[in-house]
């Protein structure tokens, strides 16, 4: 059964087309003001990569903050439900799912059947989301893609006290003025963010194994900091930013509960 999952996130629209659990195609478009057009563009990209037509897709489920904008959807699931479904499909042993996206961080506790037991959301503070690393990369005059690898070269932990993206930027500026090397500042940024996410995850209880998903899971500097904070290894899927869309597609197919 060919189904599609559409994740309308704060920054990107992501599509997964799957058939019996096998991913046929993906599509991703940066979200702009015209959400309907972005959704269509992402869907077209996913269909093209999958080599199927819209008519061959039997069911579409939507998820993400903008899920209500998917007019074609047969049903919708929350980000929490879709995250859990996708992550548990990829890693059945995961009991804690951490999703760090552009504007929001989430920690989800799941039982052995993949059912959501508890969740916590960091929704009112950019310091626990991808937007924070973007702002800090700008302050350091670095491309975002270089921030993570650079921080891995740091050998010194520089404490950042701020737990707020705005104040953290002031702190980064102070560190620059103190001639602190960029690599150490980059690590400090990731350490601060990981601390924020770990604190949120501990509210639901961190039970191994931990699976990290969302766009920020592509940042090696953040992964390194999070592992250090959690004091454990972390499972990371190949396409972490597509896991929520995958979950929605699997729920549409009845493969996930």
């Amino acid at each position: 059964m060919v189904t599609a999952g559409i994740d309308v996130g704060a920054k990107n629209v992501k599509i997964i087309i799957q058939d019996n659990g096998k991913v046929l195609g993906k599509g991703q478009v940066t979200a702009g003001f015209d959400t309907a057009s972005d959704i269509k563009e992402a869907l077209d990209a996913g269909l093209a990569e999958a080599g199927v037509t819209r008519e061959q897709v039997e069911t579409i489920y939507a998820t993400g903050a903008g899920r209500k904008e998917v007019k074609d959807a047969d049903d919708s699931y929350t980000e929490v439900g879709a995250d859990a479904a996708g992550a548990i499909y990829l890693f059945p042993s995961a009991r804690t799912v951490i999703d760090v996206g552009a504007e929001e961080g989430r920690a989800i506790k799941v039982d052995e059947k993949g059912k959501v037991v508890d969740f916590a959301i960091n929704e009112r503070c950019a310091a626990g989301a991808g937007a924070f690393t973007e702002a800090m990369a700008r302050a350091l005059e670095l491309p975002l893609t270089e921030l993570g690898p650079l921080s891995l070269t740091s050998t010194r932990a520089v404490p950042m006290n701020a737990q707020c993206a705005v104040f953290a930027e002031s702190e980064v500026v102070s560190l620059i003025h103190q001639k602190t090397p960029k690599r150490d500042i980059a690590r400090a940024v990731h350490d601060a963010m990981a601390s924020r996410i770990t604190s949120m995850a501990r509210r639901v209880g961190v039970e191994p194994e931990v699976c990290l998903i969302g766009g920020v899971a592509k940042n090696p500097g953040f992964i390194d900091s999070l592992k250090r904070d959690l004091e454990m290894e972390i499972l990371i899927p190949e396409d972490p930013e597509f896991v929520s869309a995958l979950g929605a597609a699997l729920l549409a197919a009845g493969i996930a509960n």
Partner: protein
Amino acid sequence: MAKYKIAPLKTWQRAKEIRANYYRDYEAAHEKGGLRWAGGAWTFDAIPAGLGDDVHSITSEPYGATIAYQKEFSDRCLEAAENAGYARDLCSYMRNYWGSILLDEYGWVEPGEERKPFPKPDFVWQDHICCSHAKWYQVVSDLEGGIPTFDIDVAVGPYDKTTKHGIDYVVGQMLDGIDWLEKTTGRKYDDQKLIEAVYNTCRSESTWAEICVLNQAVPAPLEEKTMYSLYVLGTLEKSSQEVADFYEELKAEVEERVANKIAAVENEQARVMTDTQPPWGFLRVFRYMAAKYGCVSIGSLYTFALIGNWLWEDGKFVPRPTPQSQGVELKDREHALRVLAEWELSKPEWQHFYNPKYKSDMMIQIAKDWKLDGVMLHYNRGCEGLSLGIAENRLAILEAGFPVMIFEGNMGDEREFDEARTTARIDSFMESLSIPKLT
């Protein structure tokens, strides 16, 4: 097709009238030669009742909530308080209230009429249940040109550890307070009116608790959004015969609803409780839960026990019988005050100021007895007092096996509540409880 019958409350209009008359009577008291006083909803309002039937109060928390419900006015009040230098993280009821004084605009507006000036109270009669309450009326007095103020300290420990000495301390202040009322108002105090008001207080509070117990029925005859409009009468004037009589009338109606399986939510399929004051400007969240998920909020420790009085020990959470139903006859002033002090200090909502475990135990008992699927806790940035220990309550409720959702907001400051995020969170919670969508 709906699962259950629904019907509007027959007593609804009467409840609205009592509330409207309360604010009108306060405003018009001087025109009729009467007096106006201000104080908290927790205060011992039975005591000023001894000054006469033409003495009317304005209780601060429901007044602050009334303002919060009027978002545009509330924003102006909050800004007025902030412009006067009061910090944004103080109690939002208090800031609404102070803003109303600073703007000199009354929060109660008759339909089709212009907003009137804030009616200045003649004196303040207050108790110190939380740190905000302790300072609230000091500022009110300052803003109103130094109106006389009497405060009672009630910090004598949790009820199960209250000593005779503690009760004596509170009663001593009450006796001093009556002398102060006589001197301040120039009126002779009537002990018989005090005794009647104490009887009414106990009757109002016990009957409201009995009404809440009826909500254990499936389907629930009341939902929390409606309960807010009913329990509030007790926060306005629990010592009045009108309120005590109304609760008895309401109880009879709710019993009838239970007998006839008349539901508050026609497709009830999930039951939750909340906690602390809701974000008053966004009560439609309850409608959303009911319409989309058939989810009824059966109440909360807050709605049950801010006014309701309960026995809460040894795995019980049952209405506290009134002293009069136990054959206690109030003999004189001191006896009435002693009964009143002992009665009010036992109220569940007073206990968590001392230790969150009291509240956790009561909430878990409610979750069991009212057959709940989950609990929605409001991390209320607007009330330090009732949010005290709420994270501990969450852990205890989870430990007891009940799923918990938290949401952040503010009871009286709409700027701190994100409706879209909150409904998204409710969606996630309902999904995690496997509650199917109805729409």
